């Protein structure tokens, strides 16, 4: 069930060191890269069906095609390593075990979009991983892998690690750029038509760490090697993270299309002794929750997850067992969102606080069924009325918990 595309070197001792990384295939795609034109690289990635692994799932190649051609302004690649979505801890595996794969992916991606400067924005809490990545970047500079001439080729790539300051919203790509520009991380209003991102009014592309780390495999082996994994509409692989009361929590690379329950039981080792599966939040905390019955039917690819009324998100599965009170689960998550709302849009800023207060009242024994109507009403008031998808994400998770576990909220009222 496990596959090795991005995670190929994860288990090799000292895989983060350049010498070991090179001995195990890192930078082997670069020679082929420079025999291709940038358009050919982009086309290969488009044909591979590679999708953004940061939660949105947007196709990577078409995103690169949005970069303007023959623009005199410098272009930039921004790598999103903010990884703050609860349940998500996959990109740190790349920082820890294979940082040279990320550097190799950055070289390939910069070449495709004609960028020479790449910024890796990493959440501030990942200090240890930032140090590890910086060591690898220093090694790559010293070896002439990056810098003025990439491995002797007439192409410059400079990579800078930018440490975040502890704001979840900076994982949203436009908020990330605002933060990189030295401002509060407030998401930008999106233009009507599709276009690239803008960094100090220069064209830029933002891609997730895992997405960039997948590119060398596609360049080296061709798109068919990647589409050989997964399903027709969700080709390839993904680093799925599993947390909660299972025997083997962790990060596992899987092709798309596996049954969720098989992954939990066979790779996760099933539930811990004495625990029974109650629910799973499938792809980070903003994806609608699945009941244990729904988990039996769930398949881990984008389309199947939409069909079942949820989303694949980042692939970060949060397992919840039957000892948990779902009102407390909802309260825990709304506290997170209330704390992390950037405050720019009133429906989000006030809505999160409102739901938080109502749930506090419910848990304090002062709730009634009317409170559930208020929560659902506030969810709808927030949905679609804000600059970014933070508020719709709150609506998705909270509404799904209230609707699917309504009986537990009612039990809470009756207990009190």
């Amino acid at each position, binding site marked *: 069930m496990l596959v090795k595309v991005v995670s190929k070197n994860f288990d090799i001792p000292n895989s983060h060191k350049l010498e070991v990384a090179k001995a195990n295939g890192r930078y082997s795609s670069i020679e082929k890269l420079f025999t291709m034109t940038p358009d050919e690289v982009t086309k290969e990635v488009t044909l591979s069906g590679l999708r953004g692994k940061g939660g949105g799932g947007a196709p990577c190649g078409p995103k690169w095609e949005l970069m303007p051609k023959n623009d005199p302004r410098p272009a930039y690649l921004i790598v999103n390593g903010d990884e703050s979505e609860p349940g998500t*801890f996959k990109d740190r595996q790349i920082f820890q075990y294979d940082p040279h794969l990320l550097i190799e992916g950055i070289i390939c991606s910069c070449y495709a979009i004609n960028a020479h*400067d790449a910024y890796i924005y990493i959440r501030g809490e*990942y200090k240890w991983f930032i140090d590890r990545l910086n060591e690898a970047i220093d090694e790559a500079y010293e070896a002439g892998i990056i810098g003025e001439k990439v491995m002797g080729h007439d192409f410059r790539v400079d990579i800078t690690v930018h440490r975040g300051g502890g704001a979840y919203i900076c994982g949203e790509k436009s908020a990330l750029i605002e933060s990189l*520009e*030295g401002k*509060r991380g407030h998401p930008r209003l999106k233009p009507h038509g599709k276009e690239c991102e803008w960094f100090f009014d*220069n064209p830029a592309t933002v891609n997730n760490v895992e997405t960039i780390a997948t590119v060398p495999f596609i360049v080296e082996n061709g798109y068919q090697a990647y589409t050989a994994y997964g399903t027709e509409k969700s080709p390839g692989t993904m680093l799925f993270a599993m947390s909660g009361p299972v025997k083997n929590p962790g990060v596992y690379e899987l092709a798309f299309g596996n049954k969720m329950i098989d992954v939990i039981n066979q790779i996760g080792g099933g539930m811990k002794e004495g625990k029974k599966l109650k629910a799973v939040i499938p792809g980070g905390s903003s994806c609608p929750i699945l009941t244990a019955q729904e988990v039996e039917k769930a398949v881990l690819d984008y389309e199947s997850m939409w069909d079942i009324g949820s989303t694949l998100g980042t692939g970060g599965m949060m397992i919840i067992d039957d000892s948990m009170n779902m009102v407390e689960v909802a309260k825990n998550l709304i506290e997170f969102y209330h704390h992390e709302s950037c405050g720019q849009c009133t429906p989000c800023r006030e809505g999160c606080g409102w739901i938080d207060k109502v749930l506090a009242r419910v848990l304090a024994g002062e709730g009634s069924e009317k409170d559930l109507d208020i929560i659902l009403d506030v969810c709808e008031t927030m949905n679609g009325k804000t600059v970014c998808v933070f508020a719709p994400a709150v609506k998705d998770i909270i509404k799904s918990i209230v609707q699917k576990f309504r009986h537990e909220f009612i039990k809470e009222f009756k207990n009190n």
Partner: protein
Amino acid sequence: MSKFKYTPENEEKFQKQLKRYPNSNSMMLPALWLVQEQEGWVSPEAMIFVADKLNKQPIEVYEFATFYTMFNLKPIGTYHIELCKTLSCMVMGSRDLKKFIKDTIGIGPGETSEDGLFHFSEVECLGACGGAPMFALNGQYHENQSVESLKKVIEECKNASKSSK
């Protein structure tokens, strides 16, 4: 003029990183990180210093620093315990760890112990859900924790403090 100054090493780091960006505005986060690494917190004096360096008003730096939760805007204890409280950590028992900190050190979220040794922050997801419950001690991750292992870490901090006196 601010009385705060970077150490020569940090001034060198600042100048080196400044060259990496197309606009000095991008130095806001790196400049404040250098301050916090040097002093342990970001003082009003340091914010004026950063404002001067980046050609900004001090209020702009203050507005920025208050948005990002990792900047300490007042001095904190020697050992900063950041306990993750978000869902996977809660499911795996972070509330027990919180209670233990309250019972043994006597501090709640946002508080510093009277002797200045410990500062406790209850934080949102630290991206270590597979190792839940977890906490960071001065930025270093401690995963798969229990009350017993937390007790041991606290004792180690106390002993290290005694031996350094």
